[in-house]
């Protein structure tokens, strides 16, 4: 059971880290490229927060991998997509097409099958 708690923490931290990473990039604007983009990124607090979250998530992830097959654990990371979907729906009241909910359903069906193995 503990392993699933760790897995949940890993997913949450890695998801938060990736969203923050994306925010950092968006706030730099799309007109920068190469070295200037990276310089500008380095000054974004979101980026450093993202790195902290990714670090915590990675530690939890390594603990998970110690006792679980990687082919079993890895598919669980796709839950981050569903978290983002729910976030978009309930925090931002974004209207989502049925196709995306079907995607979420497939992800849950898939990890349900994987969890049983």
């Amino acid at each position: 059971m503990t392993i699933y708690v760790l897995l949940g923490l890993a997913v949450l931290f890695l998801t938060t880290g990736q969203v923050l990473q994306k925010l950092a990039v968006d706030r730099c604007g799309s007109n920068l490229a190469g070295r200037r983009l990276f310089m500008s990124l380095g000054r974004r607090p979101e980026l450093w927060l993202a790195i902290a979250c990714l670090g915590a998530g990675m530690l939890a992830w390594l603990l998970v991998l110690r006792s679980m097959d990687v082919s079993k654990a890895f598919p669980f990371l796709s839950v981050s997509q569903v978290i983002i979907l729910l976030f978009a729906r309930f925090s931002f009241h974004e209207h989502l097409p049925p196709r995306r909910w079907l995607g979420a359903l497939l992800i849950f069906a898939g990890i349900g099958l994987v969890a049983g193995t």
Partner: protein
Amino acid sequence: MNQTVAHRSGFAALLTTIMASTAAQLLLKIGVSLLPAGALPGFPASWWILGGLGCYAISLLAWLLTLTRLPLSYAYPLLGTSYVLVYLGAMALPMIAESFSLVRAMGILLVAAGVALVSTSTPLPRGLHRNNDRNHEPSDSRPT
């Protein structure tokens, strides 16, 4: 940068993302399985883990680059292939050698299909993107 060049470098970045995230998972798994029992996977526990973390960092950077070059509706569905590649790698590599399971394989195919569908484009929630006209797409995290 013209459109064709942007797309070509976008696909190269996407391919790098997929390969690096797959390699990261496999290297990390090999790394932790070589640690002595009871040892925490501290940093840097081994060269395998260090290599895995390096690949993970490369995959994150390559993904950021992909997002600036390709519409997410092309990029995301292909990203689901890393689930299949990790599964195949975990069975094929002798240092990991996980056993085949039909149920797990089916689950992974469902996950890959789900990832492709769940990310098909809608605008980012207001507030999550600003002044970036190429990113009127879902926000996005990457299943690493």
